[in-house]
């Protein structure tokens, strides 16, 4: 079982103009990832871009690994060009994922945009009682909706532009949800992933309501496995590595 392995691209399905669902066939025996863990994916062998890019695994069977990615810059633009049959290197699974919710606690999952990629496998494994709030800018950017519905959890969807589901940002929806479920405050545990401003807003609500939980962070990464100290994030306990102690941190420990 190797954490540095080759995989063949079997499918690279565009979901919309900016998002693709990438399917890989690992060419070596690989380790199963925990929800929230990630992989460093080689996007080019030209040294420009130089570094691998971090991505969460959506789903994994022995023969298949699925990744959901959004085109943001140069590296992900190259990933959009990945062709069937191409062989790439990966490192992973890496980092510390989402801890399971303790007995009696209700997981409240909050995903913003591509944050759903990090939380998807957590949602698939979480009990039916969980709540999921999933938001995106527009209807178009809501991904994997059918699969999420299948999972049987209680899903609230929202869009910033009101083109689908409820209107507003996930933190507003979360706020409303707390207001209408006073009792849940004491029993819920947060799982959040999304853009930094969203996480900051959610963390503020959590603090104000004395709610515990976890957030998955992003930072530029060189190695992905703890060696370069490049991915530091400031926490109440000093700098921590997003790739090793994270990407998932107790939400109240992060210094925003």
């Amino acid at each position, binding site marked *: 079982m190797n*954490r*540095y392995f080759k995989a063949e691209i079997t499918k690279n399905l565009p979901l919309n103009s900016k998002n693709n669902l990438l399917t890989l066939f690992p060419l070596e025996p690989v380790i199963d990832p925990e929800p929230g863990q990630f992989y460093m994916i*080689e996007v080019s062998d030209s*040294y*420009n*871009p*130089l*570094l*691998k890019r971090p991505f969460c695994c959506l789903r994994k069977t022995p023969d298949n690994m699925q990744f959901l990615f959004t085109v943001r810059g140069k590296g992900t633009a190259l990933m959009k060009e990945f062709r069937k049959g191409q062989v790439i*290197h990966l*490192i992973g699974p890496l980092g510390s994922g989402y801890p399971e919710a303790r007995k009696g606690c209700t997981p409240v999952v909050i995903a913003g945009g591509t944050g759903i990629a990090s939380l998807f496998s957590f949602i698939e494994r979480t009990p039916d009682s969980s709540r999921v709030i999933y938001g995106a800018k527009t209807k178009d950017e809501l991904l994997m909706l059918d699969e999420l519905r299948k999972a049987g959890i209680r899903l609230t969807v929202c869009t910033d532009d009101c083109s689908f589901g409820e209107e507003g940002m996930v933190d507003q929806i979360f706020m409303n949800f707390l207001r209408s479920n006073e009792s849940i405050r004491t029993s819920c545990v947060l799982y959040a992933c999304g853009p930094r401003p969203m996480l900051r807003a959610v963390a503020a609500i959590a603090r104000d309501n004395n709610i515990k939980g976890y957030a998955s962070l992003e*930072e*530029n*990464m*060189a*190695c*992905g*496995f*703890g*060696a*370069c*100290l*490049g*991915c*530091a*994030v*400031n926490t109440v306990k*000093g*700098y921590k590595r997003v790739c090793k102690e994270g990407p998932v941190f107790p939400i109240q420990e992060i210094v925003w």
Partner: protein
Amino acid sequence: MDLTVDIGHLKLKNPVMTASGTFGYGEEYAEFVDLNMLGAIVVKGITLKPLEGNPPPRICETPCGMLNAIGLQNVGLKRFLKEKLPYLRAFDSKIIVNVMGNTLQEYVKLAGALDEAGVDGIELNVSCPNVKKGGIMFGTDKKALANLTAKVRQAVRQSILITKLSPTVPDIPKFAVIAEENGSDAITLINTIPGMAIDTRTWQPKLANITGGLSGPAIRPVAVRMVWEASRAVKIPVIGVGGIMNVDDALEFMLAGATAVQVGTGNFLRPTATVEIINGLWTYLDKKGISNVKDIIGGVNGESIHSNLNN
């Protein structure tokens, strides 16, 4: 086939080391690489007191390179000796510790303590571009470097002493000679080159520290040139580092005059890079019918102004 090389009184089983700051304290690579295979492990720069490092973002990419401004985050001498060194000692590889001080006294203290602790080598980092005082000051001032090297030399009895020079000087051979004359057993070239990148969307520097050190394939030609210049000026071994990604790159440095090489940024791209290079050296020597790796050191034809090379 003989892959051993000598650095001072140390015999390395092969010329491939790790570059400081890119290999953590070894642990992080243990599942990718058999640490026993390496010529030497050079660990992250150690300071007297622990340092928490610079705020993020600490790294960004540039064409064929990357900038880093880690800010020498490290556990400090005490915890290194207690928590990190014992782990490394378990492997059959030479352990070289990179050290950085704000003052001459700090360097001397660090080197003395590490020597006493029995590390195989001490690499003086006089070229860190990411800390405010000390470091690079010594690497760009001839008198300061001479004094520093001489003083540290007195404090070091068993370990070999390596000076890692700054690439930001016009006359690297002179600095190499100073290191040699004042007791260095070897020279490492090069540390990162100070650089900067700006996000034109946000008008923010891409690093919180504003400037950082450039590493990776982009700097390889500069590093090879400095190794070539320095190795012709001194008798002590030169250790080459800068943009080594594969065996071909390593060979380029050895042909230029490096007795050993260090792999830095290359480890991030392929965590197995070091062993791939060691295996590649075997294959290369075998194919070329060379039985001793020492026979390629400085092998570049540096005399003739030849014409029509490529044809």
